[in-house]
């Protein structure tokens, strides 16, 4: 992929900061026409025209915009990390079996006895996602990481396995619970309550910090495993550690927002020509762009169809797949 050196790093940072600010403030203005951009601006700079606007803005619209931003941020850096750590441009946390695992977990909640009610849908989805990652890692550790492509292949195999179990359970189960799981799998930011933010934000924050601390070692991995080893990096530990970070990030986001596919795949490819290949840059670039992207996708999801909300995963997957195909054509 070609590098565009006409942008200095300073102007890129400025551009990204501007993008984030514009996205966060503009997206708040979508909703009932009475509280549009002009009124939001009035609320931000002075006092609201009506005190109920405060509630609508801060308690209803802002949490959703924040959740969209943080979820997009997390998914995009998980994708960027996976692409760098596997040196495979098609790596994506969703090809890792995570969503299928989460889906199985979510499905199983319908069959739990009442005494196990504390296994709520998000928790079960989280555990299912971790279980999928665990299987993939076990397979790879057993075969000594002979080829990193095995990671994706094992991920795809685990995805199919879990999806088939899920399909079987849903086929046998009653229609209502099937609906519930299917709607969840399509992804939505509608769970944007305080609990969702409380869980997702710390995980994304810590994962970002850890990944940034590891960024120099991850850069050496970009050359080749051998080069990294000669530079004193313990490749296996680093790779497993990074994959666990990706798994935790994706699992917690999937648990609350359902299947929002392909953000992790396409955002790093979009930002790479602008910010370069090195890990720290691409992490921040992909994270910020991914966050803004998901906020805008959610605006479309909320407003495109009159009276209905389109599941956000439907939009990201549709866009992502087309992008994926274009990408394949060039490779």
């Amino acid at each position: 992929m070609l590098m565009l050196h006409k942008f200095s790093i300073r102007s890129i940072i400025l551009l990204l900061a501007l993008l984030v600010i514009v996205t966060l403030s503009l997206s708040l203005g979508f909703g009932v026409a009475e509280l549009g951009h002009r009124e939001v601006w009035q609320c931000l700079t002075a006092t609201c025209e009506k005190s109920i606007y405060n509630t609508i803005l801060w308690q209803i619209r802002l949490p959703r915009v924040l959740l969209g931003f943080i979820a997009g941020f997390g998914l995009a850096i998980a994708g960027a990390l996976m692409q760098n750590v596997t040196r495979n441009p098609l790596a994506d946390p969703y090809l890792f079996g995570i969503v299928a695992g989460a889906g199985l977990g979510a499905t199983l909640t319908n069959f739990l006895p009442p005494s196990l009610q504390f296994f709520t849908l998000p928790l079960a989805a989280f555990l299912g996602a971790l279980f999928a990652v665990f299987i993939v890692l076990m397979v790879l550790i057993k075969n000594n990481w002979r080829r990193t492509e095995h990671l994706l292949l094992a991920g795809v195999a685990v995805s199919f396995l879990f999806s088939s179990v899920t399909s079987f359970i849903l086929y046998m189960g009653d229609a209502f619970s099937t609906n519930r799981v299917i709607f969840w799998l399509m992804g939505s930011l509608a769970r944007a309550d305080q609990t969702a933010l409380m869980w997702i934000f710390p995980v994304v924050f810590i994962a970002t910090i850890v990944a940034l601390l590891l960024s120099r070692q991850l850069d050496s991995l970009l050359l080749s495993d051998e080069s990294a080893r000669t530079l004193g990096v313990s490749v296996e530990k680093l790779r497993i550690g990074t994959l666990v970070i990706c798994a935790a990030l994706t699992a917690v986001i999937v648990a609350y927002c359902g299947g929002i596919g392909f953000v992790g795949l396409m955002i790093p490819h979009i930002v790479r020509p602008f910010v370069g290949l090195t890990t720290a840059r691409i992490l921040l670039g992909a994270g910020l762009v991914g966050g803004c992207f998901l906020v805008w996708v959610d605006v479309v999801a909320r407003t495109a169809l009159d009276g209905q909300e389109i599941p956000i995963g439907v939009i990201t997957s549709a866009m992502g797949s087309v992008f994926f195909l274009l990408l394949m054509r060039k490779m």
Partner: protein
Amino acid sequence: MSVIGLNTEYQAAIQHKIDQKTKPVGSLGLLEDIACQLALIQSQKHGSLVDNVSITEPSVLVFAADHGISDEGVSIAPSAVTRQMVLNFINGGAAINCFCRSNRLHFKVIDAGIIEPINDEYPDLVKQRLGSGTNNFVNQSAMTAEQAEQGLSFGQQAVETLISANCTILILGEMGIGNTSSASAILSALTDESVDKCVGVGTGITDEQLIKKQQLISQALSRFNSKDPMVVLKEVGGFEIAQMVGAIIAAAKVNIAVLVDGFIVSTAALLACKIEPNVRNYLIFAHQSEESGHQLLLRKLAAKPLLNLGLRLGEGTGAALALPLLTAAASFYNDMASFEDAGVTV
């Protein structure tokens, strides 16, 4: 400015004042709690400890709207009855009108979205329509996110006139054929309680209708998976419920106490508390309705209802009946002698 929690620095002084009255400590039961709550709210409003609790311009707002789910035959009456009852309210012929007259309460009915609008203008009718009834929420969203937000805004609008009239107690009531289905669905979605526990017989349906009502609500709840109050409101709410949520939040913001009626108004109160948790401090629960979901909801909000008269009408009747108790609580707080004043020693 969001709803701020009640400033508890006055709590000790208020409780002391109540305990110094010429009576055994705590012997006025719930009335003491009410007096304390009203004194806290009004002290908050004035920014200093108030000596007297005043109950001025208590006003009843009845929000009326229609519900698409009533097409399924889950109520004793067809949707057309909602409009007929609104006309009855305007003419002063409904139960709530009688109780308003006997307790000297101001009364307004708000058309939040009944199917067929009322074209004539009446002094007691406020038109804030969000549409011609909600969609049948079994297979689609009851309303759009825009309508839900607009509902909150309209709710505040309804309270504005009361604020300028120096009203200290807002009494809410509702009218809408099919709205217990909506309230049950909201309760189940927000609390994870099973649908069976949240659904009751409404104003009196048969066992077969009850089973159908439970099934339809389960089906509706399987469409979405969220505890977010605005999503729940949009998916299975009603126009009158949306506006009541807005009215409750708006009242709490300006330190007006809200006297909550039965199941449907309590559901709006629950939604308001999920959006702005501090709203809970401003709520007084008037009565416990016969509807089983209401008892569950009151437990969830840790509410102690004042009356238990077996009411299951709605319209704000329970709240209007409870108002004299608030007046009594204010009067003992203001006028009852303390041990010191009366020279009583114990």
